Structures are given as structure tokens and as C-alpha cells.
């Protein structure tokens, strides 16, 4: 029972870090980003490349994968998303879906990730099959470390958004672009910053996941739907909401898969059902202020 | 014969009671002006009658039947139409199609609706703007389109929420004339408006609200000279002793 709870928290931590970037892009800016999974994949690739070439530990390579994804996100926003936004919601949805096809197949070119599954292995990888037993509970040490890194990032981002002036400018230009412009905020570059920051967090998620999960071009689409669920579950734009939303989804799926007979096949249904209930009866999510 | 009877209507939003037991009635074919400073509860009152939300206490009886937050389309089918303070045009559609949508709710088929739409368009002289997309109209024409659309649903009672807001003086006169024409065809009107010139010109009777309660009721001239109305609107110093 306790083991299932911690298993749920660990996978919940993974969901939370992936969804964290999306709370900025979807939660704050209301841009439906279908290419969010691809930012995670790019982060994984950067860590994979750095580990295989110079043996840099994935957690350290965050300092490179985050800026790399920031750049991709910023460019995607300024050259494409910003213009598509005027055309209405379905346009940004389709634009990012197109970007997803572009990024997946671009990274699948032979000189980058290529078509195959790769994985970080080798003895110099500290996290290689490293299982930590605390009391009767077993942990995947990489995910445990990832859990703490995620926790720190969540606090940093929350403080950044609520306390700093750039954070304030970000939220202002997302909610009322015209009003923000009048008070002197360069909305397009601030929004580009927000989008890039969202992508950077996805890059961080990629680096953390690279420690234990396989790396291939189309892995991004695996957790796309779950990230949207978590952002809405936690409350649009609420950073702590996304973190707790991720944990709730992780624990629910874990218990559902373990204790409900034949549950392993229906594992994802539990998360989806909770999502629908929250969406219908508490649209502002668990922690969001009224929308 | 009264078409609309409101008796000690009140509405509380949490602690704030926006409307405190207001009672009045409107006779058939009459034009009632509803005035008062901002925040007096005019729009809240208006929205309760229009079914946008239900009242905390009191009754609203329209043509003998109660209104208590029933959805706007039900009330519209019962003959109550309204215009919006902030215009809500069907932007991408042409003026003619805006009216077609309104006409279709009452007429059996497309042909009747088309005939009715042509009638309404000429009556509200939007003829030459027939094919322009609603989104590109001036504020004056947008307000006129609102009225035309409301008219096209053959209402017996028309609630108008500041139809003259933001209009040039000449547009105000046009709007006054429009209201008079509509009224001539037997449509009862309840008008919320700040421009006193217009209210005085069209209303048969006026009621004045101030922070939620009714402070004066009656003919336009008596109400205008009523001390507490002046005090409420212009402040004490204007009160002639």
C-alpha cells in the first residue's frame, strides 16, 4: 500500500515537471501547445548527446538543455505562434500540431536522434538501475532526485511569477495584451519570453527523464494529453496547482492500476475521469482562482 | 392594463443588496424611463426582468406570468426582447443576416423570415447597410441594429439598456425618433438611459433609483423637479431651497 503511494508520487513528479512548462504556455498564455512533448524530447536529446560525447551527468546538463529549449520555444513563438494567435484558438492548436510533426521528424533525421531507441547506459552513469531502499519502500533514485529538483523548480517559478516584475509583466501581457501594452510592456517579447520559459522547463523535464527513460523522436506525444489534464486539474496558470495536480494524477493511476482487477489495461482511464469531473464541476481547477 | 408588474423586488450579491424592494408597474403601450446615478441598481433591475439572473425576493409578473431567472430565449418566445448596453452584433454576418436570425425565431420558414427582415430593415432605415458585415458598422448603426434585431422578434415588451450611450447628438435624435415609431406600433418600452434629454422626450413615466431603492416615481416633469432626485443626481448644492 505504502509502496503504491510512493510509486504514485514518483510518477506524479514526472507528470508535474512535464506539465510545469505547459502551465506557462497553456495555463497563463492560453496557447494550446501540441508540440510541448517535443520540447521534452529535445531536452532529452541534449542530455543524451552531452552524456555520450563528454559523459556529462543529465542533471548537470540541465544548464544546457534548458537554454536550448528556451531558444526553440522563443523562435517558435516569435515567428509562428504570435501570428497564428490572431486567427483564433484552432489556429494555434493546428500550428503547434504542425510544429510537432516538424520537430519529431526533424529530430528523427539520421544525424540527430535517428529512427532508433537510445538510452543512457554505461557504468559512469550514476543513475544506472540505481534503486534506493528506504525502509520497506523502493525508489528509483533518478526519479527521487528528479522529484526534489522539480520541487525546487516549482517554488522558484512560483516566486518568479508572483514576486518579480518580469513575472508580473508575463501574466499581465497574457491576460490583457492591450492593457499591458499601454502601460509600456513590450507584449510580444514578454510573451516570447513566457513561451520560451515554458519550453525551457520542458527541457529540464527532458534531462531528468533521460536518466531512466528511452530516448526516441516521438516520445513527446506520450505525455501530451496528461500534461493538459494536469494543467486544468491544478487550475489554469497556477504553478502549485500543476504540481499537486500531477501528484494526484500519478497516485490515482498508481492505485487504480494496482488495486482494481484488470486495472492495468484501464490505467489511464482513472486520470481522465477525474479530469472530466473537475472540468465539469470546478472549472477553475483545484487551486485556480475563478477563471 | 399593466403589462409588467414588479413588486418589492430585491437582490443581494453576498453582503451587498443591490436592489432593495422596488415596486412599479408599466401599462401596455407605455414608455417607462428608468434613471438613476451609476451603481443605483438600474442594470441589476433590468437584468432580473430580462431573465439574466433570478431575484432574491419579490415578484416580476409579465403578462400575468411570473419571471424568475428563466433563460432569455424562453422570455423572448413570450414576447420580451432586450438590447445590450455593450452591443453584441453577429460580427461576421451581414446586417440582413443578423435580422434573418432574429426573424427566424418567430416565423415558420425562410421565406416569411426574409419578408419580415426586409420590413424591419426599412422601418429602422438600415436599408443601404443591408449587405455590409455587422462588424464593420459605426457605433450608431450597431445600436440601431440591436434595436432592429429586438424588434424583429415581435416583442410586446422591449427592454432597452442605454441605447444612446456613445451616440452623437444627431444620432440621439434619430434614436428618439426610432423609439417613438416602435412605440407607435404598440410595443411597450422600458428604457434605461442617462441622457435626460432623450428620457424626457420619450417617457410617459419615469422612476428613479438610488443605491438600490426607488426614490421617485411619476410624470417626467414632476420627477425632474423632485428635490431628492436632484440631490441624488447633482448633489445638495443644486437643491433650490
Amino acid at each position, binding site marked *: 500500500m505504502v509502496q503504491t503511494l510512493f510509486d504514485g508520487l514518483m510518477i506524479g513528479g514526472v507528470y508535474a515537471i512535464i506539465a510545469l512548462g505547459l502551465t506557462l504556455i497553456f495555463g497563463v498564455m492560453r496557447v494550446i501547445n*501540441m508540440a510541448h512533448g517535443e520540447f521534452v524530447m529535445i531536452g532529452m536529446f541534449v542530455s543524451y548527446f552531452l552524456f555520450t560525447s563528454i559523459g556529462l551527468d543529465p542533471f548537470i546538463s540541465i544548464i544546457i538543455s534548458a537554454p536550448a529549449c528556451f531558444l526553440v520555444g522563443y523562435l517558435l513563438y516569435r515567428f509562428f505562434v504570435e501570428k497564428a494567435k490572431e486567427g483564433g*484558438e*484552432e489556429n494555434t492548436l493546428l500550428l503547434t500540431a504542425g510544429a510537432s510533426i516538424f520537430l519529431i521528424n526533424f529530430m528523427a533525421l539520421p544525424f540527430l536522434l535517428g529512427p532508433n531507441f537510445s538510452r543512457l547506459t554505461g557504468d559512469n552513469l550514476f543513475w544506472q538501475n540505481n534503486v534506493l531502499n528506504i525502509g520497506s519502500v523502493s525508489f528509483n533514485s533518478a526519479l527521487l532526485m528528479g522529484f526534489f529538483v522539480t520541487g525546487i523548480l516549482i517554488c522558484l517559478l512560483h516566486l518568479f511569477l508572483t514576486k518579480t516584475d518580469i513575472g508580473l509583466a508575463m501574466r499581465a501581457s497574457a491576460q490583457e495584451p492591450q492593457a499591458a501594452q499601454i502601460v509600456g510592456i513590450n507584449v510580444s517579447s514578454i510573451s516570447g519570453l513566457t513561451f520560451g520559459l515554458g519550453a525551457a522547463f520542458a527541457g529540464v523535464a527532458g534531462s531528468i527523464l533521460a536518466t531512466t527513460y528511452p530516448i526516441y523522436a516521438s516520445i513527446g506525444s506520450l505525455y501530451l494529453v496528461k500534461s493538459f489534464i494536469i494543467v486544468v486539474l491544478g487550475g489554469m496558470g497556477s504553478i502549485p496547482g500543476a504540481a499537486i495536480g500531477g501528484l494526484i494524477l500519478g497516485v490515482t493511476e498508481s492505485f487504480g492500476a494496482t488495486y482494481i482487477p484488470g486495472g492495468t489495461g484501464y490505467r489511464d482511464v482513472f486520470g481522465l475521469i477525474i*479530469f472530466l469531473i473537475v*472540468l465539469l464541476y470546478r472549472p477553475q481547477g483545484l487551486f485556480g482562482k475563478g477563471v | 392594463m399593466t403589462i409588467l408588474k414588479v413588486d418589492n423586488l430585491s437582490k443581494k450579491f453576498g453582503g451587498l443588496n443591490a436592489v432593495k424592494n422596488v415596486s412599479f408597474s408599466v401599462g401596455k403601450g407605455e414608455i417607462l424611463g428608468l434613471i438613476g446615478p451609476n451603481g443605483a441598481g438600474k442594470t441589476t433591475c433590468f437584468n432580473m426582468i430580462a431573465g439574466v439572473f433570478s431575484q432574491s425576493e419579490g415578484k416580476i409578473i409579465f403578462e400575468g406570468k411570473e419571471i424568475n431567472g428563466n433563460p432569455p*430565449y424562453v422570455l423572448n418566445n413570450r414576447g420580451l426582447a432586450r438590447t445590450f448596453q455593450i452591443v453584441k452584433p*453577429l460580427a461576421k454576418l451581414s446586417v440582413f443576416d443578423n435580422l434573418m436570425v*432574429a426573424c427566424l425565431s418567430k416565423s415558420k420558414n425562410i421565406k416569411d423570415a426574409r419578408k419580415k427582415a426586409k420590413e424591419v430593415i426599412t422601418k429602422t432605415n438600415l436599408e443601404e447597410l443591408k449587405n455590409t458585415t455587422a462588424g464593420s458598422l459605426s457605433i450608431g448603426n450597431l445600436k440601431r441594429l440591436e434595436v432592429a434585431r429586438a424588434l424583429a422578434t415581435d416583442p410586446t415588451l422591449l427592454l432597452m439598456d442605454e441605447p444612446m450611450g456613445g451616440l452623437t447628438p444627431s444620432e440621439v435624435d434619430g434614436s428618439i425618433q426610432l423609439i417613438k415609431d416602435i412605440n407607435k406600433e404598440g410595443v411597450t418600452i422600458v428604457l434605461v438611459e442617462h441622457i435626460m434629454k432623450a428620457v424626457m422626450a420619450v417617457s410617459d413615466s419615469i422612476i428613479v433609483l438610488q443605491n438600490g431603492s426607488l426614490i421617485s416615481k411619476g410624470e417626467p416633469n414632476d420627477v425632474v423637479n423632485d428635490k431628492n432626485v436632484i440631490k441624488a443626481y447633482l448633489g445638495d448644492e443644486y437643491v433650490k431651497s
Partner: protein
Amino acid sequence: MKPVIYVMIVTGIIAVIVPLFADLYLYSILTTVLIWIMLGQAWNLLGGFTGQISFGHAMFLAIGAYSSMIITNSLNLDMILTLLVGGLFAGLFSFPLGLLIFRLKGPYFALATLAFAEILHIVARNWKGLTNGGEGMMLSNNATFLGIEIFSNDEYFFVALLLAAIVSLSCYYLMKTKAGYSFIAIRENQDAAEAMGINSTRTKSTALFFSAFLAGVAGGFYGLYNKFIDPEMTLTVHMSAEMIFVTVLGGIGTILGPVIGSTILITLQEYLKEVPMFQSFSSLYLVIYGLFIMIIIVYLPGGIIDGIKKIRQYFSKGGDESDYSKSG
């Protein structure tokens, strides 16, 4: 000239010319284009005309596909009946769904439909008794259309041509009815529509019913044409997204949008595979395809039809304002 006549003429011309030099592969491309026209029209009813962007429309496609396969395999009814019943099942399923999620707006509505489609995807994969699970279902006997046995690609092509014409025309005429006007009114401004006597929930569920019905019919045909379906072919996010691509690329909220969008998108995919320059890396053609979508959406937000209109207006300096009642 009445639309019905002009559609018949165009369909007739295509039906005569194509067989002159079409081979098996070209028939399959054209049939795929026609299937996506139907799916695009279905989605457009709800997304384009009523403004409710659904992101899980593949669920109606799947209901149509699976019910048609089951009916044909067990009762072997005529294709017309099978497709109608498939569409009806999808339509009936849409009622409870509509009541539940029509309170939601914008991204929430899209995500709710996405969640329902994912749930159906998981159910289809695990409910072996009904859908034979991940293994998928094969068509065991040949479908018949008005008694004629439909088997080879050209036969399927002609049926697809007929169905696509009927679906497009029915959408066109539906939008001319009172319901059509109220769909548009709700898209433009729901409060104004309600103030004019339109019951928005009932109208939205009517739009959803027709949209689901047509998606079910198209899905049924898709299943019978492929003679094999599995959850991955019918219930993925990719299928729902493709329905939106086809419509938005052509021009959302127009009858011709899905027709043009589907023709371009499907042929482009096949054509890019052919270009020798892209053969060097196997995934290069999809890189170009993704880039194409991004560029189109940024520089032609209103879709190709809007683009044509703008070009025409640019040349004819002040072309006629688009009076809805006249344009497609």
C-alpha cells in the same frame, strides 16, 4: 445555377474522367481524399459553423466504423443501411455527451472531447468482446451497395464520390435552414443568440448530433473501405487533428473548405513521398509537410478560400462584400 445541379455536373465529370487513366493507387488516393472530405464536413458543422471546436471527433468516426464492421460481419446488411445505423449510433452517443460538456467553452470544451476520445480509445483496446481489442477487426464478407457487391477500389471510389457529394450538399442545405442560421448565431455571439430566442444548448446538441451522424457515416465507410480497423487507426489524436487540418486549411466555416483542404493535404502527403530530393532521408518528407502546415496557418489564417477571396479582392479592387446568404 442551383448548387445541386452544379454538384451533379462536377461529380459526373469526375466520374467520367478519372477511370480513363486511374490505376489502383490513384483510386485509393482519391477515395481517401473523398473520405476526408466527408470527415471534414462533419467536423465543420460543429467546429466551423457552430464555433464549438471539438478535439476528439475521432470518437464518432470510431463508433461509425466499429458498428458498420460488426453489422456487415454479422448481418451483412446493405451498405446504405449499415452506414445509416453506424451514423445513428454515433449521433445517439452524442446526446448524453452534449448535455454533459456543452456548459464548457473554448479550450475546456476541446479538452473534454479529447478526454472522451482517449477514454473510448482505451475501452476499444481492452473490450475484446466487442472490438476484438488491439488485434482489430477484419471485414469477413463483402459489403453491398444497393445490392451491387462493392469490392475493388474503383467501385469504392464511385460510392465515395456519391457519398461525399451527398454529405457536402446536405451540409450546404442544412446551413440554409433555420437550424443553420442559429448555428452561426451561436458561433458569432451566444448571448445575442439567446436574446433573440435561440435555445443555445438545444441548438448546440442538434449541431453535435448532425456532426456526429455524418462522422459516423464517414467512419463506417472508412472502415468498410479499409476492410480492417483497429483502435490505432480510428481513435488517435492524429485522426481528430487531421479532421481539423483538412477544414481549417481549406477554410473553416465554409462548405468548400473541407473539399479543397482535403484535396490538397492528402495529395501533398503522397506527392512529397514521390519527390526524389526528399528520398535521401526517410522522415524528410514529413519535415516538409509539418513546415507546410505551419506556414499555411500563419500566412493564410482564413484558409485557402479566404486567401483566394483576398487575392480576388486585391485584383478587382473592392470585390463584393461576402454576403453570407450568397457565398458557399
